[in-house]
């Protein structure tokens, strides 16, 4: 970059910052911004500046709606004696079906009774005037001072409205002016009968009027409001400050502002996340190392439902039955969590929490862009009495980044479309029914019919799957615990989409079902110290019928777990967790403990030290696969064997679960309203990784000879017209990996509407006892994320995310004419990505238009040796909410 160009760029950046700085008057990140308005509002109300306070509260609600804000506004009005206004907000509050619905309804009735009583009382005192001014009996009670105060308040709110460009405040101010004018007009009209009773402060109450006491719990609802909470770290809602794990939250604003359609790309922004985009339909995710195709070491939950595809050990992000618009938030828990979630919560957890039913909201979105990108979405949610509902439907499509075989190739044939990477339509629905304040029933279902282009495992790479992904879930949430049942199913076919002439495309039919039951008891109590105890058990039945495995298989898994958070003193929590998993292929139950100490020097900062273990059990593929793999020599195949058939045929040892032991030290600081800081350092010891071993040549005795005592392999397979060279079976890598690393995250809100965030992660792996490798460098030593989000008062939205990782070295298997399959090291250069979105919100924010850029600089990178080479993509989106 030449000096002139650099100078120009810097000047432009400076200009941009200047514009941002001088056009700002509100704060940035919506949660922080809303929290700030809320706190100001509550303080003003407490000081007696009710209207100013309520204006702030309304700003908070506009920024990030929360029913408790409505409650506090209603309460403020009620305490100020402005019952009619309080009724409006109470009713809005009740529309959210809050847990204290009955109490609030009782209070609402009391307020209405009081108004009625006031109306009854007023005519008795001023019967004539009432008859003359029937429409506004209360207004006749206003004094000049009260009307002046009301106009002053309107002026202040109008000032605030102009400063914040808030339509609602403008409306609010106008309403107050109108009210003041109405009062003045009324007073002028009935000047002969001035009232002694102030309008708002002390309406005359009859002796038998209902009490306005909301009862216990009627205090202001500010505790934790707009504070971030996570539910995944301890199975209950808590502040990230007190969570025993390192956590990150992806907010709806992040989702909206970035414009990403793929959840994996959202997770890329999280410190310590290892994310590689292999195709537009597949993003592999791990944390703190050991990422690989199919993401086998991260447990992804959707509303608490495991989406782990047991046969593959995969998360098929592109098959989820919802769009990102349906997501309320995504919680990311880094580090092992088998103590709570059992097998597969190895490197971390991603818990996707969808928008809850009941919110009166309908959204329609559409997008289209380069490379065949199409995005359609429609969802609606609302409430009918106690029944909350949300339904969604959507469609996504995208072409591959690259295809492996060109359409002009004469040495190949094409089994499937080689251009499409992601073609998926879905339907989902969720219902909730509140039986009582303490009991809620819910049911959820979804189906996604899709074509996905995914990278397989071992030397098998470019796959296309076609089929349906379905789930159903039902459960009950109570104040004492929960009970949940869910069913997952994938019915699909898989095939290699293009192959050399006459080479088997490995077509297979895949039908997988899981049935899960989970029960949990949760109690908070005091015994010596405060306890938050969770105790539960789960059962999972897995079934798979798949051409790639030896026969239809069933497995039954069980587990019991407990967790107790002990509040030793206010500033010190001790978290103890443990889980025992029973796996049918393991000789002994697997015990997974976790412990953490959380010290809180103040309410807004925490120091955390934790220790935990996790494990990953073998997948169906690793356990039972029996598949002839073609090789570059047409008449030769290599048989891939799972641990069970390999144990029978080759007398190989059975697999042990992958294990990780982790110790972590973390610090989190949320003291400032202008920035948050989080940092952590960790040590992981990883053993027994399951890998696809090297080819073990068959002995003649294993070839079609049942007398040898061992199992046998057919010497010649007429179906594939091949001879088996040997077996390649899943085995435990004897390598011991010692990993050290850390993350640093900073999020700051320097000026209005501007979020700047950055994080850095370091990771280094030391290798011991390795037969395969000298180093383990599939994880970049350095990773940097940097981003800016800006929301202008006039509706403009700009988001830019920059992502950079350092070099990697992958040890992957390839087909080889001489050896069948062999390991090969692949160097992967470090790469960067720049993603961005520019958008505009119009029509009172109901319509949102945007253009999303992906890999804007067209950095033709590959994020895995077998991954497709990314290109630049652009997409226009429009979303309308009503």
């Amino acid at each position: 970059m030449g000096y002139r160009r650099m100078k120009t760029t810097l000047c432009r950046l400076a200009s941009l910052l200047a514009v941002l700085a001088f056009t700002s008057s509100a704060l940035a990140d919506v949660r922080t911004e809303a929290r700030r308005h809320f706190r100001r509002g509550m303080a003003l109300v407490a000081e007696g500046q009710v209207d100013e306070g309520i204006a702030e509260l309304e700003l908070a609600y506009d920024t990030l709606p929360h029913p408790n804000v409505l409650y506090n506004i209603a309460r403020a009005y009620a305490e100020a004696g402005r019952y009619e206004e309080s009724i409006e907000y109470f009713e809005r509050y009740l529309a959210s079906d809050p847990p204290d619905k009955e109490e609030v309804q009782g209070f609402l009735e009391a307020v209405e009774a009081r108004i009625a009583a006031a109306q009854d009382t007023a005519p008795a005192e001023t019967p004539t005037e009432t008859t003359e001014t029937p429409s506004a009996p209360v207004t006749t009670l206003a004094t000049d001072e009260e009307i002046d105060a009301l106009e002053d308040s309107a002026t202040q709110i109008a000032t605030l409205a102009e400063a914040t460009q808030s339509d609602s405040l403008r409306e609010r101010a106008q309403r107050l002016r109108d009210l003041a004018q109405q009062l003045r007009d009324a007073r002028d009209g009935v000047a002969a009968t001035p009232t002694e009773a102030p309008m708002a402060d002390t309406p005359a109450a009859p002796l038998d009027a209902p009490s306005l006491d909301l009862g216990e719990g009627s205090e202001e609802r500010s505790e934790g409001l707009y504070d971030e909470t996570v539910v995944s770290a301890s199975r209950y809602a808590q502040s990230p400050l007190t969570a025993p794990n390192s956590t990150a939250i992806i907010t709806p604003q992040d989702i909206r502002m970035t414009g990403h359609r793929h959840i994996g790309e959202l997770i890329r922004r999280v410190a310590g996340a290892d994310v590689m985009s292999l195709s537009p339909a597949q993003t592999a995710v791990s944390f703190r190392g050991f990422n690989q195709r199919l993401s086998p070491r991260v447990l992804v939950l959707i509303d608490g439902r495991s989406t782990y595809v047991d046969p593959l050990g995969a998360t098929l992000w592109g098959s989820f039955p919802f769009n990102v618009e349906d997501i309320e938030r995504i919680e990311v828990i880094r580090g092992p969590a088998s103590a709570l979630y059992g097998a597969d919560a190895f490197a971390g957890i991603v818990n996707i929490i969808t928008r809850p039913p009941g919110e009166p909201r309908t959204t329609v979105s559409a997008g289209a862009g380069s490379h065949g990108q199409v995005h359609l979405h429609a969802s609606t949610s609302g409430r009918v009495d106690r029944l909350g509902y949300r339904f969604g439907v959507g469609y996504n499509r995208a072409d591959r980044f690259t295809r492996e075989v060109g359409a002009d190739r004469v040495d190949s044939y094409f089994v499937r479309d080689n251009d499409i990477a992601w073609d998926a339509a879905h339907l989902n629905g969720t219902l909730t029914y509140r039986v009582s304040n303490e009991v809620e029933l819910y049911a959820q279902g979804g189906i996604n019919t899709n074509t996905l282009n995914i990278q397989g495992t071992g030397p098998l790479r470019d796959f296309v799957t076609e089929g349906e992904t379905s789930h159903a879930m039902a459960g009950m949430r109570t104040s004492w615990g929960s009970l949940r049942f869910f069913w997952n199913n994938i019915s699909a076919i898989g095939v290699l989409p293009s192959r050399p002439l006459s080479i088997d495309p490995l077509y297979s039919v895949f039908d997988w079902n899981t049935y899960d039951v989970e029960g949990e008891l949760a109690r908070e109590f005091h015994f010596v110290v405060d306890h938050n105890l969770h105790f539960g058990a789960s059962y999972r039945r897995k079934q798979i019928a798949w051409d790639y495995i030896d026969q239809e298989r069933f497995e039954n898994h069980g587990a019991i777990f407990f967790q107790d958070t002990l509040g030793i003193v206010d500033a010190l929590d001790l978290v103890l967790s443990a889980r025992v998993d029973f796996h049918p292929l393991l000789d002994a139950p697997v015990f997974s403990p976790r412990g953490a100490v959380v010290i809180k020097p103040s309410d807004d900062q925490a120091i955390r030290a934790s220790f935990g273990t996790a494990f990953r059990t073998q997948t169906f593929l690793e356990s039972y696969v029996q598949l002839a793999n073609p090789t570059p020599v047409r008449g030769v195949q290599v048989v891939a064997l799972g641990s069970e058939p390999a144990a029978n045929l080759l007398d190989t040892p059975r697999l042990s679960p992958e294990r990780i032991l982790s110790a972590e030290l973390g610090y989190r600081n949320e003291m400032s309203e202008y920035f948050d800081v989080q940092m952590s350092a960790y040590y992981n010891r990883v053993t027994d990784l399951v890998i696809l071993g090297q080819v073990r040549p068959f002995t003649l005795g294993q070839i079609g000879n049942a007398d040898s005592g061992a199992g046998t392999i057919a010497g010649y397979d007429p179906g594939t017209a091949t001879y088996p060279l040997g077996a390649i079976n899943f085995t435990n890598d004897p390598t011991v990996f010692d990993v050290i690393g850390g993350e640093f995250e900073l999020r700051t809100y320097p000026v209005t509407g501007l979020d700047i965030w950055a994080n850095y992660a370091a990771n280094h792996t030391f290798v011991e006892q390795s037969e395969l490798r000298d180093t383990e460098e599939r994880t970049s030593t350095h990773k940097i994320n940097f981003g800016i989000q800006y929301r202008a008062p006039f509706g403009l939205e700009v988001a830019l995310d920059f992502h950079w990782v350092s070099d990697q070295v992958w040890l992957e298997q390839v087909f080889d004419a001489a050896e069948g399959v062999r390991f090969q090291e692949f160097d992967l250069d470090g790469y960067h990505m720049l993603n961005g979105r520019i958008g505009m919100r119009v029509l009172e924010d109901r319509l949102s238009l945007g253009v999303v850029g992906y890999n804007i600089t067209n950095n033709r990178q590959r994020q895995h040796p077998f991954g497709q080479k990314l290109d630049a993509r652009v997409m226009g989106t429009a979303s309308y909410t009503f």
Partner: protein
Amino acid sequence: MRSTHPTKPAVGLLALLLSLLALAGCRDVPVDDFEYEGGTAPEPTGVVQGTVLYSGPPPICQTDEDGSVVPVGNVILTLFEFDNPPPPAGSASSAANLLTIPGISFFEAADCLPADPAPEDFAFITRTAEFTWPELPLGGAYQIRGFFDYDGNFNPFFSVTNIPTAGDIGGGAFVDPQATLRAYRRIAFESEELRPNGQVINGVSVALGAPVNTERPVFYLTSDDWLDSAGTLPTTTDLVARENAILDATGTTLHLYDAEKDGAAFDALAAAFAAAGMPVTRADGSYDPRGFRIGDLNGDEVSHAWYVRPVDADGDGAQDLHPTLGAAGVNWLTPIVIMQRIRSAAETEAGIPDVLMVPTVSNVAFLLQGKRVYDDEIAIGVPPISAVQLNPADARCQVPFIPSGNTTSIYERITVECQEVPTGLYGVNALQGLAGARQIGGAPGAEPMCTPPDSFPDGTPIPEFLAEDGCFDYPEIPPETARQLERCNGDNRCAINASFTGTGYDLEGGTYSSQNWGVPNALGDPSQIPDVTGTADALTPAGQILFAQQGLGGAFAVTDSDGASIDGGADCSMALDDDDESPTFGTVRAVNYRVFSEYFEGRTDLDEAGKESARQDLQDLCCEPVAHLCGIPLCPLAAPPTHPDAQVRAGITSVEGGVPNCVPFEIPDFCCPGIP
């Protein structure tokens, strides 16, 4: 933070959105880079499509698990580089590719041979099947050889099963299948540059119609002695004497198994074959069309044979000189014997280079006289010269190790390391026994071969029936007697007509297969040798085709007699010179060993600096794989259990990060400059 009104940017965005909508699906998906460029796209390949014509007896059939009747055998097609077919026409030890066509593609149930066939049931039938052979490298020229595995006992991955056996129907893709002297068709693909989308060659016809009448020879190795790592080549100028001296130096013999005479050894072999799914039929056993017939050297059916004849690998019509000893005037005969030092798994991990030796087989003199050897045992001579493959990826990195005291002139022209032959155990493979040949007129024997002596060497009179026509009637001689009669000539050899094989059969053809090829090449496959330290009790774990004679017990040993592995003899810089025109050797002169100095001498496009740079590049290429072994001490000497009187270097006991605790032989000095 709500906006109040739509603005121009919103209109612009809307327009952009609409234009993007129009863009959707308008662009072709680009193709990734080819694999050789670091991408994921498979590089373009060649495809051969055509028809296989089978002309042979009806197939043997069996009932499948589902009750259907299916043929036992399949068609096996092998692809060789056109200019390098298997021995003896070429030196390919492995097919470049393999294609099979299931027998069910050719035959229906009605074609099957009856369970109890009469002779007329073997009348030939003709069937055809299509084939497609994908993923062949572009830019190459190939020939196709093939056979119908009639008895279904072929498997390319095991040395005992990877060639056709008697009863199989051989052939190939010929220029003219009807020609008396059939030549293989040249199937040539254009380069990747010319064919970026691949190339398909259609219309290739493969004709299979030549029955294989012989079984492959099955052999084992014996040695009266073992090679001293510091041994020297004979120093006589008499070529015959030189070869005989080499043959005598190690006393090593390849033996054909004989079902009649090998007793317990044969029983073990037969059991191992049976365990390998290949039932063995003894000479006097009942006929099993799927049985493998071992030995039967004197039976009335065509059996095994060494196919001893000159090697003409370069195709110039003249016999080639031995690759190692050729400069000393030694010719090259089949069988080609290759010894490869057995590496343990630890040595493989540590990157210890492979070491090869190429012995010479006996009887050059008789070939020069148009005579052949009658023998089921072939003496081989092992010259004390090894070829160390510093970098297997480049043939120029194959560096001879010669002990000090050897003749020098031929080695001053190539990169040589004056160093003792690495000790250790060497697995043995023989290329080109005989298989696929056609017997002409049954077993030989009527032709007088020589005048027998009156008595055996021990004075026992020769029975009269053997001498009545002035010669012996070969087929009728009891094996023991025949063996004794081998020494009927004055030089203890019995000459027979050159048109016969080494074991006395008059055969033709057999050039479309060799004894040893595989995918991968099974030469000295260490994975089939479970314990190179020799401590394993049983070398034949259940079902593993590893015979004492073919595995460790049959491996050739190179030992260190004086315990000094390096420079144990004369000064390495001084050696006997064969250029002094004296009738005998003995002149000692300084040796001008060179470091990759032969390369690039003829390059006119390079000046001296360029040549030196290129040499250095080559040296770097060759030495880089072993650089990590420089400076590591030699492993201590130890006596292997199989050779308690000898010493070999003990094996590596640990490997840390690819670096072993010791090395079994020294790495060439030129790869370790400055490191003692």
